[in-house]
């Protein structure tokens, strides 16, 4: 891989954690937003979607990394897409076998994992250039980061939209749910809200830091 500008990365803790916080695919990179918004009206759906994506990320990451010396550059994207589509199909059937209700709730979005930019992006920019172990760890980090982000939304939307969490009633029958969070606009609002919150925290932290340096 002499032509590659980026040398394979040594394995480190950051390989795993960058996907969770610093390069979180949803909150930072804003990738793969369609499933993030479409299937997070309940925490269960969010978790299932997250795990499905995680699975595809891991498998495709490992396979792409394994085959990285074999696949010719010119057809690499096509190969990645075929690999990803394979694992997505597998996940799709697996979920149908596990629970039809879940499959119905997630709808076409399981199959749409194929086009999720996170996965192809990882395959192209990381797995194809790094060792299998690294690819695995990195994909795990990304997948966990993606799942956590989905959960962040799913939890908020389910609690507000239905008054439940993982289908367990939280507040009793007289609770008034805020149905808007179960509806499409609520998805946008919740994600915008999280982004706002993170920006606010970041700003506060930056302010605190600059004050510190000022004092020092």
């Amino acid at each position: 891989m002499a032509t590659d500008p980026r040398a394979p990365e040594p394995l480190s803790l950051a390989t795993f954690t960058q996907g969770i916080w610093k390069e979180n695919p949803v909150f930072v990179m804003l990738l793969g937003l369609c499933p993030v918004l479409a299937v997070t009206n309940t925490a269960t759906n969010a978790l299932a979607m997250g795990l499905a994506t995680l699975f595809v990320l891991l498998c495709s990451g490992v396979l792409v990394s394994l085959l990285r010396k074999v696949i010719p550059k010119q057809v690499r994207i096509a190969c990645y897409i075929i690999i990803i589509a394979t694992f997505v199909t597998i996940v799709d059937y697996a979920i149908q076998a596990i629970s039809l209700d879940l499959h119905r709730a997630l709808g076409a979005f399981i199959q749409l994992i194929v086009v999720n930019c996170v996965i192809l992006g990882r395959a192209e920019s990381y797995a194809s250039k790094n060792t299998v172990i690294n690819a695995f760890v990195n994909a795990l980090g990304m997948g966990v980061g993606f799942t956590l982000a989905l959960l962040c939304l799913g939890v908020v939307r389910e609690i507000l939209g239905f008054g439940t969490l993982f289908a367990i009633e939280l507040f009793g029958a007289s609770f008034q749910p805020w149905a808007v969070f179960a509806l499409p606009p609520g998805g946008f609002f919740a994600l915008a809200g999280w982004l706002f919150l993170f920006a606010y925290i970041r700003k506060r932290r930056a302010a605190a830091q600059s004050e510190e340096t000022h004092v020092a």
Partner: protein
Amino acid sequence: MSPDSHAFIFLNAFLINNFVLAMFLGLCPFLGVSGKVKTAWNMGLAVIFVMIVSSVCAFGINHLLVRYNLEFLRLICYIAVIASAVQLVEMFVKKFSPALFRTLGIFLPLITTNCAILGLALFQTNREYDFTQCLAFSLGAGAGFTLALVLMAGLREKLELADVPDTVTQAALSLMIAGLLSLTFMGFAGLGG
């Protein structure tokens, strides 16, 4: 209007269950290419175009797959065939209408493999639309995408001149606009029912 009529299929994909604002399909290009109204128009045209191409392709392939009982290969085939069909058409356009290529061309690679296109193919298969229904569906979906994109771009251009608080990032702003648009489009629920 009957749920199977072409007019209703169009209207449903266009307004009632707008692809972007209600179905959450194609959000990445929606957020990425909605900064300028002019770009948004061109992008919208490109999407309509690709949607029709892929809808037709998907319809044909599905026919074959069903005939040979190979439905489990559907996803792989869709994605491969749509991508190559768009590539082919792209080459064709580049050759015969460089002007058209300059307006649409840059967007084509961006959209060939995104949720909106694949979602369209999957939905039309699930709903068992016939050929003309597929056309109505893809036109409606493309028009709905374009409408949402252009409205969004107009609002974002307007907000470029606003004093938006600095804790509101560009992404949060776009998502909030999308949320409000989505809230607005709820008014079309049940239209034509």
